[in-house]
């Protein structure tokens, strides 16, 4: 067995000198500096300070992956990028365009995209709202901007789906958040093109704490997607984002993530959606990179007939642990949830599915189905499944199934007898295995996903 190519495929980073960054470590002074630098109103500063206190009191999660190496005192909590906000693509500095080139977003596609928000360190460098969106009354801006321009909406919804005290990392995010997107879709507006945000981390030892808030009014629809590809650097780095989504009556939201952080990053994300009557929330989630990812996209099905779906793929390569899954809480009648999780462990990587399905009293007629399939490609790798199902209502249906297996010898033999090399055959089988999830991704993500899987598979056979 060959060792996985140590040279990271997306291991580049641009030298951009930040205008300003806070001192390492976390304190009230640091939080005050961040808020002041951003020129925030007092209520936001108060929110941050309250969250800091909660963060200090909360203990580290004792489950999931190994978090013992995270040293909160060695992290930088805020970095201001050199670049000012750009108005159009032409004005975007070449250096940054280059980065996009390397991520592999073709020019034509970029233009097609509804509005590209690229996060360069903690601030949105480039964010252009298409006129079309503007005329529909859709708001798509950085969270920082929203605090100033839409204080009423931010104040009304922030922390309502994921309260400050939800978990230690949500509290940390609430205290030091920077960047992230704010999306507001008015009643009845259906956006057919996905809204995209590209994330980059670009300073060593720098934690990134985006805060995203998406509010979708009644009968409105939106598909938001984020993709990340972080450059290589040597220090441990922390990414602790919070994503809150409010899906109102008969609204529909799809949130797609293709995560490919560099292999020294801790990716500890809290994502949750509140779904109203007959609303629909879909999480499509692909996790390839990072050292440790702990992410469980969740939904609270609060309105009658609400629906939630999570489709996820996780690849754990050498020295990686993907502790991912999904959580659903059925609160209302006739709510439905579907969770499909596919994982691939290779070269000593470890995948853990961790999930929760809770059906509360009163949620009669609810249905939940969870399917976890895991592939283990070699003897060094590991795969776990830790589902919890809590049923407090009689008239429900809950199904959970999980399988763990290796790639079948017969399948490999068949493909190789048709002229494929072992590696190609393995690639075909793995891509077939994740197909049910990939086909739900937007086209460009599906293409990228297949390309990334092939890259990960390199050197894994033979």
């Amino acid at each position: 067995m060959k060792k996985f190519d140590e040279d990271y495929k997306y291991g580049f980073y641009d030298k951009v000198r930040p205008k300003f960054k806070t001192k390492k470590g976390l304190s009230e002074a640091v939080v005050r500096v961040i808020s002041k630098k951003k020129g925030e109103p007092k209520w936001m500063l108060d929110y941050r300070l309250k969250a800091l206190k909660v963060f200090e009191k909360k203990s580290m999660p004792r489950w999931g992956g190994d978090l013992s190496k995270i040293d909160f005192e060695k992290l930088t909590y805020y970095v201001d990028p050199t670049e000012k906000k750009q108005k159009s693509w032409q004005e975007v500095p070449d250096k940054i365009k280059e980065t996009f080139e390397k991520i592999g977003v073709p020019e034509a596609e970029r233009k097609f995209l509804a509005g590209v928000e690229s996060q360069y360190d903690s601030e949105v460098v480039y964010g252009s709202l298409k006129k079309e969106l503007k005329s529909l009354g859709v708001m798509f801006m950085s969270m920082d901007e929203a605090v100033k321009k839409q204080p009423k909406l931010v104040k009304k919804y922030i922390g309502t789906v994921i309260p400050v005290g939800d978990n230690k990392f949500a509290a940390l995010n609430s205290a030091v958040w920077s960047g992230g997107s704010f999306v507001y879709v008015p009643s009845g507006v259906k956006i057919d093109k996905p809204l995209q945000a590209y994330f980059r981390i670009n300073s060593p030892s720098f934690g990134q704490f985006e805060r995203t808030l998406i509010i979708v009014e009644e009968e409105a629809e939106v598909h938001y997607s984020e993709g990340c590809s972080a450059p290589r650097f040597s220090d441990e780095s922390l990414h602790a984002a919070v994503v809150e989504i409010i899906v109102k009556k008969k609204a529909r939201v799809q949130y797609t993530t293709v995560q490919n952080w560099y292999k020294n990053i801790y990716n500890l994300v809290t994502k949750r959606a509140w779904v109203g009557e007959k609303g629909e929330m879909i999480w499509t989630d692909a996790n390839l990179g990072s050292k440790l990812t702990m992410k469980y996209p969740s939904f609270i099905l609060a309105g009658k007939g609400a629906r939630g779906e999570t489709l996820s793929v996780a690849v754990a390569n050498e020295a990686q642990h993907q502790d991912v899954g999904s959580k659903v809480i059925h609160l209302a009648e006739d709510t439905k949830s579907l969770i499909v999780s596919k994982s691939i462990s290779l070269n000593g990587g470890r995948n853990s599915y961790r999930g929760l399905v809770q059906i509360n009293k009163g949620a009669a007629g609810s249905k939940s189905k969870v399917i976890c399939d895991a592939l283990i490609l070699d003897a060094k790798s590991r795969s776990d499944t830790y589902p919890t199902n809590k049923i407090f209502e009689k008239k429900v249906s809950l199904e959970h199934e999980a399988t763990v297996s290796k790639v079948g010898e017969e399948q490999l033999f068949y493909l190789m007898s048709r002229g494929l090399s072992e590696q190609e055959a393995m690639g075909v089988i793995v891509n077939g295995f994740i197909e049910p999830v990939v086909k739900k991704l937007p086209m460009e993500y599906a293409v990228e996903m297949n390309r990334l899987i092939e890259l990960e598979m390199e050197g894994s056979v033979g």
Partner: protein
Amino acid sequence: MKWQLVDKPGKYNIKVKVGEELGVVVIGKNGETNIIVELMGKGARACVLGVIVGKRKDKIILDTKTVHKVANTHAETEVYGVMRGKAIAEVSGIIKIEKKAQRVTDFLTEKILLLSDEAQVVVEPALEIEADEVRASHAATVAPIDKKQTFYLTSRGLSEIEAEKMIVRGFLETVMKKIKDDKIRKLVGEEIYA
């Protein structure tokens, strides 16, 4: 194949040696029952069958664990439960396949039938797999009686109560018929159909 019955709450550690085949029948009762079955030797096979009948204010905790210490071992666990009254059941199970334990198969099934509006159920079927030449899976379902089944039986002249009884019996019979020891099967039957 040897069979063994566990009908009292408590902690049980059962070891299955080289080439040994063992059946463990567990009746989950009010209290906590922990079963650990360790497959210690090549060719060891274990079959764990659990039955739970929750009623009134029972709180039944049943935890099963099959640990594959070596290669070429097989285990399967099936837990079937019926919940009445205000009973609470916490059914957890884990399949643990250690690194050296290649060429292993293990399946875990947890099925609960809800007969009461006030019963509460937590099911946690888990897997921890460190070897690659394995086939392991688990499945869990929680649901009330399928209305179609009741309809079918009542349309054949049975009362609702008789129909329910018959369906419950059929459900539990799936596990019962896997108990190959006549004496134990009889004992379990007396216990659960009482």
